């Protein structure tokens, strides 16, 4: 987990950072549970940490009101950006919109944690290291147990692979052992967690990962 920052220190030197927030990218296919994870993380962590969220998802006032109803974050701490029909461009090739928004929120709120949720995409999506310090890739059991072996940068290089909706495995005939074996084969030493956000809305394992990242220092 810790090796990432050492490798990329030189990139951070070009970028004057505002404050010392940990910027976390959350990517993954449509419907895998990215927004749900953001909501769970906010609910679990907002009492002790200052959080902001940038969503690249097709952002509607309905989404915003769902988050508002769950009271996960004040609405002025959630900002939606448009991606011009190309969600992976906005987090990888041309990060201007996201970077601009992240910096604006950092200036305003001095958060401990910045969550950047990508729009639902496919397995080729990955976050630029100039936008986030750490990236989580969220897939789900219902997408099929072959997904981990299909690879792509999200599966192979994300700092944490989150395999969500384990409660659905028996219903969709997904073999979690196969997914675990393939994830290990594709990711080497990089960590993978299996979860069901429905059964564990505190997102315990993801929160533990983020706490570790926050505690063990990231490039600031």
């Amino acid at each position: 987990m810790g090796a990432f920052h050492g490798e990329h220190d030189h990139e951070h030197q070009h970028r004057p950072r505002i404050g010392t927030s940990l910027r976390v990218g959350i990517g993954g296919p449509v419907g895998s549970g990215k927004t749900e994870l953001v909501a769970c993380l906010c609910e679990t962590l907002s009492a002790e940490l200052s959080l902001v969220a940038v969503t690249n998802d097709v952002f509607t006032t309905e989404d915003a009101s769902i988050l508002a109803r769950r009271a996960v974050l004040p609405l002025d701490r959630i900002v939606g950006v448009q991606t011009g029909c190309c969600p992976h461009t906005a987090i990888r090739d041309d990060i201007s919109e996201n970077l601009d928004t992240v910096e604006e929120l950092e200036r305003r709120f001095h958060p401990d944690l910045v969550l950047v949720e990508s729009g639902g995409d496919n397995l080729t999506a990955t976050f630029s290291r100039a936008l986030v310090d750490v990236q989580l890739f969220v897939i789900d059991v219902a997408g099929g147990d072959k997904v981990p072996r299909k690879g792509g940068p999200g599966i192979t290089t994300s700092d944490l692979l989150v395999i969500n909706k384990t409660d659905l495995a028996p219903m969709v005939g997904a073999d979690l052992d196969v997914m675990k074996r393939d994830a290990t084969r594709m990711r080497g030493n990089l960590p993978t967690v299996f979860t069901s956000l429905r059964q564990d809305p505190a997102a315990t394992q993801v929160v533990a990962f983020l706490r570790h990242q926050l505690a063990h220092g990231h490039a600031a």
Partner: protein
Amino acid sequence: MSAMTLAMLLLGDGRLPSGGHAHSGGVEAAITDGRIVDITTLEAFVIGRLSTTGLTEASLAAATVHALTGTTTADDTREVLAVLDVEAEARIIAPALRMASRRLGRQLARVAGRCWPHPVLASLADAAPDGAHQPVALGACGFAAGVGVQAVADLAVHHAVSTPAQAAVRLLGLDPYAVAALTADMASLATGVAAAAVAAATGPFAELPAPNGPILDIAATEHAGRDARMFAT
């Protein structure tokens, strides 16, 4: 290849990370309103945009390069850029478009600062701390990159055509070859608009061209408040 040619190609490349991919130049709103439905209506839109806001933007950008060529001190440079930014503000009426224009100016200056570090970019930030309007930023970034008045006018005209064209391909699934051909067919109009912008660049700032498209302003204002939009403008 000369350094200037490389800089110009970079500035005209849609892959340059300067935020443009999130903008449709009014096309998404026009599609929502039913004003663009196919290649013919897209062509009409592009001609209209190029002849109005396209000329306004190209003139501001060209005037910026021209004016910077004549400044000597940092104070002078900042003052000139501040005045041009006010002229741009006066020509961009809809609040949503003003905000987007400043944001795009900020984003262009960010990448230009890495590609072509130059004191003029510090003056630009001083003149407009929240980001200069995009045409003024384009002029300043072009100047920093060693790109001349004509080339900057050409770049502004190219942006005015390619932004809506690309967005229409993504939103309507139009034949990409037909859209590329449409862009190429704009040569005569584009040449005229760029020439008019260059001619205006040497005149008083207050007399820079200011044609506008009221429908673009109204549609952009509605678009900014719309749910589930793909493009910022």
